[in-house]
């Protein structure tokens, strides 16, 4: 795990000094994070990195995990999908299971923090233990278009918190509590994003039979309809008429996801007969993903719907020109024609890919600007800064605070 000093060559000494200075202002306060799992998933991933770094900054950050059986997590998975706007069959029994486990956690978990920072809906009911300490609910989910019944149920707990945090303005709701906007981040020193030696990149290409003598375009995403992998192949085919290139579609395992299996079949069918399309079903392997992104000439993220779309930040961080749909959090990461190209259709994506392959200088400039934008706005150091400022803000009502 990287130490805070290791970020100095990336973001500069002054940025780390600022973090130490504001971290120091939280002296004596215990920040207790609570979520539903210590491994797997984006929240655990960020807490695993964030908590040790906060401790290094002298912030007394701690992390506790609620308990729950299979039934509870089946219900919370349904809630998660429903909050994303997916139709789910949710019955009263599901709410009962959720409340029963929540009550058990209320009895078992000590909410000792001066600030209790609750992540996502699973532990949300713990707010009923609130005393005179501060409570914040961190929503990592896109709740811009949620199932109304589930949102109404959860909202009764949300409003009891001191504040809520969302990742995008469009995810927020009119609530009687303070709401903050904190974007997610990537870690430039993680296996997925750190610099890689050329021989590691070459090794990955050779393992998957990808040649280096043709430009590579890639989309690295789950095989999910909302990521539109079939549309990516259509765009590639359109580009291929003019530029001899290869396409990599790489994504995580789909075996536990019936729809994913179907999408993968459709993708394979669409790619049939073209040896320059590489469909890679990858296990969780961050170094391989990193190497494939670094080997690419253009990276695509042609999603139809997206939460924040951090794969775009990952690609930009590697200085790559990106063509991505203007959905979810992607326009926050890409300014069209400046730090990447935004598209709204297959034809638009194809045109942009062609333009980038034919104008390497322009592509390089977009990549450089993109990297700079990510450096300033989407690295873990900015995320830590926002979290510390959030915790501090709970003790002030003013808009301008002199520390």
């Amino acid at each position, binding site marked *: 795990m990287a130490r805070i000093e290791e970020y100095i060559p990336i973001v500069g000494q002054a940025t780390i000094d600022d973090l130490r200075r504001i971290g120091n202002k939280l002296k004596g306060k215990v920040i207790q994070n609570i979520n539903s799992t210590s491994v797997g998933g984006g929240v655990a991933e960020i807490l695993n990195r964030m908590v040790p770094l906060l401790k290094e900054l002298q912030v007394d950050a701690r992390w506790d995990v609620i308990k729950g059986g299979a039934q509870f997590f089946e219900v919370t998975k349904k809630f998660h999908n429903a909050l994303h706007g997916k139709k789910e069959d949710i019955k009263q029994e599901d709410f009962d299971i959720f409340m029963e486990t929540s009550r058990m956690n209320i009895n078992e978990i000590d909410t000792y923090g001066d600030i209790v920072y609750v992540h996502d809906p699973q532990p949300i009911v713990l707010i009923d233990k609130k005393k005179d300490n501060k409570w914040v609910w961190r929503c990592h989910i896109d709740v811009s278009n949620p199932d109304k019944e589930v949102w109404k149920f959860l909202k009764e707990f949300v409003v009891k918190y001191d504040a809520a945090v969302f990742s995008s303005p469009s995810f927020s709701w009119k609530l009687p509590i303070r709401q903050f*906007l904190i974007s997610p981040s990537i870690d430039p020193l993680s296996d997925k994003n750190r610099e890689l030696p050329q021989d590691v990149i070459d090794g990955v290409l050779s393992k998957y039979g990808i040649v280096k003598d043709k430009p590579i375009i890639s989309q690295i995403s789950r095989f999910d309809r909302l990521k539109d992998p079939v549309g990516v192949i259509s765009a590639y085919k359109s580009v291929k008429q003019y530029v001899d290139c290869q396409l990599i579609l790489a994504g995580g395992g789909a075996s536990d996801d019936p729809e994913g299996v179907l999408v993968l079949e459709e993708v394979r069918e669409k790619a049939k007969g073209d040896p320059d399309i590489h469909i890679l079903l990858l296990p969780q392997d961050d170094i391989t993903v990193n190497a494939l992104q670094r080997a690419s000439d253009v990276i695509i993220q042609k999603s139809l719907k997206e939460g924040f779309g951090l794969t775009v930040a990952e690609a930009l961080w590697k200085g790559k020109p990106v063509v991505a749909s203007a959905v979810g959090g992607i326009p926050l990461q890409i*300014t069209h024609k400046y730090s990447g190209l935004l598209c709204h259709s297959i034809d638009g994506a194809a045109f942009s890919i062609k333009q980038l392959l034919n104008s390497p200088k322009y592509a390089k400039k977009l990549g450089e600007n993109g990297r700079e934008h990510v450096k300033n706005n989407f690295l873990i150091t900015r995320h830590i800064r926002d979290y510390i*400022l959030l915790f501090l803000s709970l003790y002030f009502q003013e808009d301008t605070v002199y520390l």
Partner: protein
Amino acid sequence: MKEKEIKKASETFLFYTRLNLSELTGLKAFSLGDLLERIKEVPESSIYHHTHRFLQQHQYLSPEPPNDFAYWVTNALGEKELGEELASIDTVQFSTIAELRGAFVAVIENYIREEPEAKLKATHRSNAFYFMKSVSFILPTGYEANDLPDFCRIMENISIDSIYFHIFEARLRIGKKTNDFSYWIENSLGNKKLADAISRLDPYTYTLEDLRSTITQKALKYI
């Protein structure tokens, strides 16, 4: 050889920094009429947020209009002419947020007077304008300059947030058409020539990193 005497400042320059956290106000606009009403009523920290955010977030030269209102009016409402007028409001010329708010209100009201139907033009729910505000934390960085060599040394290492604070926000704080560096160099070091040279820079045409090196280079000439 006698070393050149270094002039000590009559007052120490304390480097500060400003760190912002974005707070959602829950207010949205779907039409130009909504936008106008909200601009009139939101707290000053919201006007500040939507007119200054880009400077810290896009600290390199960016083609984006320099305020969120112009961007939204152009891209969500398709009102390019008004967008251009709003983008042309020179934020740096205003010494209070109240005056700056007044400038946006005047431009929009004027446009609506000439194009009354524009007031009703609305965008889709997904393209709404979300009013946010900045919660700002101002803190000393611990760096202090007592003479020009100190100043140059610190300028090379200070965060760009600190440079931003002393250049872009000085007008709003001290109500003068200058920046903190020029003010100190003129009043505490008595070097009007250098103070003016820094004051004349148009900060909008530099990246913050370029401002850092340009100011430092100018100051180094006087050491």
